[in-house]
């Protein structure tokens, strides 16, 4: 089970790296924000898997904090975008 969770975490980590290409390429800020949203979900998935691997419950709290604050980041970004520049 351990090894399986590790493999799953590795696959998801690869996904994170791949998604960062979209952040680099854009083209618009909204595309990048969309990619950020996807990354935080994937990151939370990796963290809960690693929490099982390392049997460290604190990592589940970390996943919660990650999701909660990335929601704040995206909301802050969207409302800043609506501000007239």
């Amino acid at each position: 089970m351990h090894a399986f969770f590790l493999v799953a975490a590795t696959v998801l980590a690869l996904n994170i790296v791949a998604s960062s290409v979209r952040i680099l390429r854009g083209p618009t800020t909204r595309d990048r924000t969309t990619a950020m949203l996807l990354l935080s979900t994937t990151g939370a998935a990796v963290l809960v898997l690693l929490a099982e691997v390392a049997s460290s419950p604190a990592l589940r709290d970390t996943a919660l904090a990650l999701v909660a604050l990335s929601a704040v980041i995206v909301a802050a970004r969207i409302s800043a975008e609506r501000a007239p520049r």
Partner: protein
Amino acid sequence: MILDVLTVLLVTAGCLFVTAGTVGLLRFGDLLQRLHALTKADNLGLGLIVLGLVLQTSNPAVAVKLVLLWVLALLAAATNSALLARDAELTGEHR
């Protein structure tokens, strides 16, 4: 044993969905399509992984926390992608 098999199946399916979401994010042509890939595939992926892990735990508090995580992620993704899509529609940025 059966639970283990179920967990493996669910987590594998979850990884596949997340990967599908990533491929969509990279390959789809415009913002609205990418949002479509993100909101459905990725959150379903997280949900399946969370479900797989819930089967492994005997502690109800852990199960509740995992499900709470998924609900929070769902809410955030739904809200933010609605806002992103609405603005894109208003400004015609998806063209």
